[in-house]
Structure formats: C-alpha cells, structure tokens
C-alpha cells in the first residue's frame, strides 16, 4: 500500500521525520512568527499611546491587532494549517472560538442592556413623588 495519511498532532510542524530533515526551515518559521508578533505588539502599544488617531476607533483597532497576533501565533507557533490532516484540530479550535465569542459578547451585551434599562435614580424619585 501507499503511505497512509494520519491526522497531524496539534503543534507539530510536519510528520516527525520531515522535521528532523528540515530544522533550518523550522527555525525560519518560528523567526518569521516572532518578527510578525513583535511588529504587531509594537503597533498595539503605539496605537494605544498616540494622539494621531481618532480616539473612538482605538479600541476597535486594538481588537483587530490582537486578532491578527492571535492568528500569527496559531499559524507560526502552533502550526495550525488548512490541510486535511489538520481538520480535527481546526474544528476543535473553531468550536472553542465560538464558545469564547458567545461568552464574552453575550455577557457584554446583556450587562450593557441591563444598565441601559435601569432607570436613573432621579427619574425613579420623580416616579415615587408622582411628579
């Protein structure tokens, strides 16, 4: 039979024998990841401290930079790919991201909504005083 194709363990760059051959390219992958991560981190700190940008958009910009850096870490450090041997890892990751987004965005939405619906103290007084 031909060589069988197993799933790849999360974090493994390639099947092990290939890694032994290609240590130099492995170092290159990690170094590119480090360089990109440093650039994105530096950009985050700059964006948070500069007065050049519209202050209303800075939170959104920081979020985008964090998502980009998370992608860099996943691809260059954890070797997540779109290959068929990585399907299980990616599906588990996608489910995890779904739960994380539900928990964080859901909590923020619900709490903001509750705060919005809470009547300010002054109006509450008016209601009680029948004014």
């Amino acid at each position, binding site marked *: 039979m031909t060589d069988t194709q197993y799933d790849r363990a999360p974090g493994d760059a390639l099947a092990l024998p290939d890694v032994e051959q290609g240590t130099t390219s492995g170092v290159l992958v990690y170094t590119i990841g480090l360089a990109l991560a440093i650039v994105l981190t530096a950009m985050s700190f700059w964006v948070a401290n500069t007065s050049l940008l519209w202050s209303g958009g800075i939170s959104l910009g920081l979020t985008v930079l964090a998502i980009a850096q*998370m992608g860099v870490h996943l691809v260059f450090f954890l070797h997540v790919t779109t290959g068929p041997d990585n399907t299980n890892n990616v599906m588990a990751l996608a489910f995890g991201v779904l739960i994380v987004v539900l928990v964080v965005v859901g909590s923020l939405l619900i709490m903001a909504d509750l705060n919005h619906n809470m009547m300010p103290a002054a109006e509450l007084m008016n209601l009680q005083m029948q004014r």
Partner: protein
Amino acid sequence: MNIALAIDDDVGLEAPLSASEAGPATKRVVVGFGFWIFLLSDIVMFAALFAAYAVLANATAGGPTGAQLFRQTSVAIETGCLLVSSYTCGLMSLAIGSRRYAATYFAALVTFVLGAAFVVLEVREFAGMIAIGAGPQRSAFLSAFFTLVGCHGLHVTAGLIWLAVMMAQVAIKGFPGTVERRLLCFTLFWHALDIVWVWLFTVVYLMGVIA
C-alpha cells in the same frame, strides 16, 4: 468504497489513504489532540474571566482606575519576556525533534528564565498595587483584575514547574515516546498562554489606559 478504491487502482492513482481509512491514529496525535481540547476548555474559562473583567472594568467604587495604576513600560517588558520565551520554546521543540540534548537544555533554560522574569515582574506589580491600597478587596474592578491577571500568572508559574520537571525527565530518561509527548503538550501549553497574554495586555492594560 471498495469499488472506488478498485477504480483508483485501475487508473493507477496511488493516493494516500484518508485519515478515516488509515486506521487508529498514532498515540502522539491522540495525546496532542486531547491536550488541545483541554487547552480550548482552559481558554473558555479565561473567556469567562475576561467577560467578568470587561463588565466590571469601570466599577471602581471611587478607588483608583486602571489608567492610574498600570505602568506601560513594565507591561511592555512582560510582553517581550513572554513572547521571546514562546519563541525559544518553539526552538526547543525543534531540538527535541532532532534529539539534540544541549540545544534542548539551552532553549529550555532561556524559556525558563524569561518565564520566571515575567512572573517576578508581575508579582512586583501586584505587590506595588496592594501596598498603595489597591488590593483585590478595594473595588469590583480590582477584584476582576487580580482574578484574571493572577489566574494567567498562576498558569505561567505552573508551566515553569512543568518545564523544570520535564528537563529532569529528559536528563534521566532521554527521549522515549512518553517524554516526547509530554514535551509536545508543554509546548502547546506555553504557546496557548502567550495567546491569552496577547488578549490580556490588549484588553486589560492598553484599553484600560485609553479609557
């Protein structure tokens, strides 16, 4: 399916078997995937702490705010320490793959020192905040802050202990399959902690300073 295979053979295509036809996966894949699932559940727990922090970020109860407490230089140094230690951890996994003992020990040592520097900086930051009366009991904001950042710090500390134990195992046992799988899990853990830290410094420190 057999028919399809037979046709393939006739055509002369020697496509590799798909994952489902290749039989049980290797132990390394099973162990790595199991630990991957654990890490994702750990990240879901962090998501709950992040949500609590984000909701309570402005509930300072008249106490100090994030903008008054956070020192960006110390956060930047901590970020650099953790990022470079994640890089050396990756280099360590390459050294393990090619069975180079000296390179493994050296990369592990650099990873450990940078991780320890991160923990020391964070403990000093916490001690300074508690000393000026901004401890976790001061306000809901500070409770959420110490829970979230402290939980990450505890993870890093546990990772340092794990790394030391793994190096002792490499020294005594060498690189049998068991030790190699444990090292794979450790590298996954360390990279995942760095991803959590990316969100921590973005959401807690940088957004806390601009708000």
